[in-house]
């Protein structure tokens, strides 16, 4: 279990993390979501032991604090920035990070081959990393984090800027790691990734925890009502009791029973070109909690 308690970290006047409490269960895939500048990276920095908190604590269960060498052996980190040596080949990169994790000899060779295979890089293992596509570099980034077979993985935006094929491959890799019983902390800006992969999700902003739970729990608690979306040939001809159309000409009705409302409109002879029901999702939750204003930093 990863336990983060009353974590505080400031950089000058900026309170990056302001009293955060989190508990992540062993074997769980945990999503950490938040807008830019929410404090995700600082939280992860403290959790992996490279940022010293001002106060509070981080513990990796029985392994102790993340600065302990024993705990570090259990940690695998795939940073958002591609932490690779571009002038080394894929294989040389993986071997090097395996060596600094203490692997040698046959075990190093075996693990290197295994993670290159699992990330689909075996055929290109002798090529230099700078010749890889963005998706391949992301996969290599993950392979370097996995080479020492860590129990706990921190994956920071692992699919940023990759093509759909690589993205799908990365999803499969994460699922495989989950099946293998690893604890995964996953940060992303893609809400559907969190919905698909994470057992539980935490949404943070301004260094504080805003919501925590399964995706269904979060939607139920913070998603709001479903909306019935109606498209008219001429929105001016809509019945008076329907709300004003949005800028795109679509009329959106918030209702707990969109299907029943649709039947009632039909029975009243309201003519519309098309109708759809939009149920709240994690993105709705995220925007409801963190607002719609732009975050440029």
């Amino acid at each position: 279990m990863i336990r983060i308690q009353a974590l505080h970290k400031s950089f000058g006047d900026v309170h990056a993390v302001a009293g955060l409490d989190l508990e992540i269960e062993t074997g769980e895939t945990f999503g950490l979501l938040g807008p830019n500048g929410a404090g995700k990276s600082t939280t992860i920095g403290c959790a992996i032991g490279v940022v010293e908190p001002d106060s509070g604590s981080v513990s990796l269960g029985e392994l102790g604090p993340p600065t302990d060498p024993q705990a570090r052996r259990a940690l695998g980190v795939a940073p958002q920035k591609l932490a690779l040596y571009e002038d080394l080949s894929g294989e040389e990169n993986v071997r090097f990070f395996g060596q600094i994790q203490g692997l040698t000899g046959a075990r190093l060779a075996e693990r290197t081959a295994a993670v290159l295979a699992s990330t689909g890089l075996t055929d290109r293992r002798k090529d230099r990393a700078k010749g890889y596509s963005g998706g391949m570099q992301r996969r290599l980034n993950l392979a370097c984090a996995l080479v020492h077979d860590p129990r706990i993985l921190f994956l920071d935006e692992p699919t940023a800027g990759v093509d759909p094929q690589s993205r799908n491959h990365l999803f499969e890799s994460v699922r495989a790691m989950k099946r293998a019983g690893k604890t995964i902390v996953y940060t992303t800006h893609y809400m559907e990734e969190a919905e698909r992969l994470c057992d539980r999700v935490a949404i943070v902003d301004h260094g504080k925890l805003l919501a925590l739970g399964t995706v269904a729990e979060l939607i139920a608690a913070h998603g709001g009502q479903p909306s019935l979306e109606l498209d008219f040939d001429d929105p001016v001809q809509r019945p008076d009791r329907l709300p004003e159309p949005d800028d795109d000409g679509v009329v959106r009705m918030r209702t707990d029973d969109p299907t029943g409302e649709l039947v009632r409109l039909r029975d009243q002879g309201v003519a519309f070109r098309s109708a759809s029901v939009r149920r709240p999702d994690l993105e709705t939750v995220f925007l409801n909690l963190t607002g719609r204003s732009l975050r440029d930093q």
Partner: protein
Amino acid sequence: MNALLAIARKDALLLWRDKAALFWILGLPLLFASFFGTIFSSGGGGGSRGSLTLQVIDEVDHAGSKQFVARLAENSAVKLVTAQSAESAETAVRKGQATAYIRIVRMAEDGVGMFSGESPELVVGIDPSRQAEAGMLQGVVMEAVFGGMRELFTDLDKGKELAAQSRAKLMADEDLPPAQKLVLGTFLGALEKFFDQLPQSQAAGDGTAGGAARGPMNPDVEFVDVTRDTGLKFSSYDISFPQAIAWALMSVAFGFALSLVRERSDGTMLRLATAPIGRGTVLGGKWLACAGMAVLVVIFLMLVGKLIFGIQIVDPAALLVAILSAATAFAGLMMLLGTLGKTEAAASGAAWGVLMPLAMLGGGMVPQIAMPKWMLTAGVVSPIRWTIEALEGASWRGYTWGELLVPCAVLVAMGLGCLALGRLRLRGATI
């Protein structure tokens, strides 16, 4: 230890694969050493000193002036060129085609003028940028002037003849007061007798007629290079290679310092920091790679210098100590340079901002002989200065171990100091 070696091997491999960095580390120093070595060796033929080109304008053009020019030509330190005119000689000096010119305005017909009272009048013009050679040239000219007197006192027949001719001229001079004529005539007569009575062998000094007598009128000027007598002749490449190696070491330190900054900005340092190794191992690996690369680069350049340019290596063991000391200094300096900026651009600018003054003060750009005293004094802070001294001392200057200890100890101290300072600065740095 496995992790330390892995980091060192990785950094060395990365540098080896960076062709641009390799050019600065190996290509440029080789060009530097061969270019400057060739320039300063021109005309030297493996010797240590070139000759001064001297344009001669003989406005008198008689036997005495010709004797003077012949005496000048005997000196191997000067190469004489007869000028068409004073203007052309001046132009040649101004354009750097000649070191100096000498204009013979007046010269006694006997080439000496000792008894005729006719002193020589010479005008020597020298390129202002060649002041270092001016003193040497003055000595050469004075030697040629006094060389006439030497002949007078070593060739007795000539001395007697000159004394007789002067006495005849004296007696024939109707304007000279009788008393003065009497005194001078008596002196010249006595001098003729003196030349008659003096044994030829005693005048010649070693018994060889016309040989080089020793005495105040016959300065025996010999130019020697002040190095320990190793029995070897050093060349200009022996000087240019240590300088070039200092540049190579700067490039090695610069390259590794940038790689340290790159690790921090690219995120690989973050991955290293989360590994079960201490920060000391991470930095130690980089230090080891830098020091190891520095040693290999210096050995490679010295071997090229030895095998292709014939530079001297008097004591290989001493040279190895000098190389290890220099590598320690520059690997430490690398660690400090790597903390001077958070981005490659910032660190690059700051690193050159440090390295260039060190190169200037240490003799990496301007030879130390051309430096003012304050620069020489300030140069003691530069590892370049000590590196050059250590390498030259171990290669061709033939330093004793005691003499070599000073530059090597200074280099090691500098390296360890910079390493400690760099580690201190990195301790507070955010990865």
